[in-house]
């Protein structure tokens, strides 16, 4: 394995560099997944049938908490990559843990939100609107849930093996995934919630 020391560890081998490029291409496909969900949401959001509309069920407080928590977690994962490049393993792990904790808080609030929606009569089968709303939010939430497990596994590997070309590469790719989820949330926040409550 040829290691180029002029680059950050996560880019230091050809394999590592290509894994990062490959992950970007995967994110391109993820963009399409969410684009189809958004397209469906915009088409179906008027089809409320006998169920409630978005304006009737959206609450600003949990949405704001989710947004701030996710923005902050995106900031801490960015600091994780920075600390990793400085070779500060303890600080890097601290930021990593902070990100996972914030992700768990986000998920907790989202679960509360889902319970609230079902409680006020907007379940998965109520109307076209409620179905696509819960599917869109749920797909994002499932990504966050997967991220929590994936991140935890990488964190354990960093603790076990230290900052190696392998573990830093995994951590960097995880940071790309996490930032991407934040980008998706920004569009959900803007065009599902704020547009719905406008």
């Amino acid at each position, binding site marked *: 394995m040829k290691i180029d020391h002029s680059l950050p560890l996560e880019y230091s081998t050809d394999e590592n560099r290509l894994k990062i*490029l490959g992950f*970007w291409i995967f994110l391109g496909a993820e963009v399409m997944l969410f684009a189809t969900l958004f397209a469906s949401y*915009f088409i179906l959001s008027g089809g409320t049938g006998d169920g409630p509309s978005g304006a009737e069920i959206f609450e600003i407080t949990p949405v704001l908490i989710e947004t701030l928590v996710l*923005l902050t977690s995106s*900031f801490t994962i960015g600091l994780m990559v920075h600390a990793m490049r400085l070779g500060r393993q303890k*600080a890097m792990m601290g930021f990593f843990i902070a990100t996972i904790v914030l992700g768990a808080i986000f998920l907790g609030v989202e679960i509360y939100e889902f319970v609230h929606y079902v409680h006020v009569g907007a379940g998965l089968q109520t109307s076209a609107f409620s179905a696509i709303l819960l599917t869109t939010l749920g797909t994002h939430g499932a990504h966050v849930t997967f991220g929590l497990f994936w991140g935890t596994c990488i964190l354990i590997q960093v603790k076990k093996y230290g900052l190696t070309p392998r573990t830093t590469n995994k951590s960097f790719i995880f940071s790309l995934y996490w930032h991407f989820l934040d980008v998706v949330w*920004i569009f959900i926040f803007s065009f599902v919630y*704020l547009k719905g409550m406008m």
Partner: protein
Amino acid sequence: MMKELFPMKQVMGFIFSLVLTAVALMVYFFDMSFAVGMTILLVTAFIQAGLQLVLFMHAGESEDKNAIYITIYYGVLIAIFTILGSLLTMVWTYQIQ
């Protein structure tokens, strides 16, 4: 050293993203027309997304820079075509009678 763990660029990026969120929230707290509200949301959302990509995701730092940017542009372009095309054929067309 605590300071080296919090680079200015990232702290400023975080503050800027909070400001953009606050600007987007104006559509909730103030009365405005649909067109003005949507314009605010589109502008703030796309700046936010760009901020994440360039500042936090380091999109332009490796030698694969071009391939990465082409992937993003392509993905976003197809996403916009899909969303606007769906709206055009299934929502807007029905309003023009």
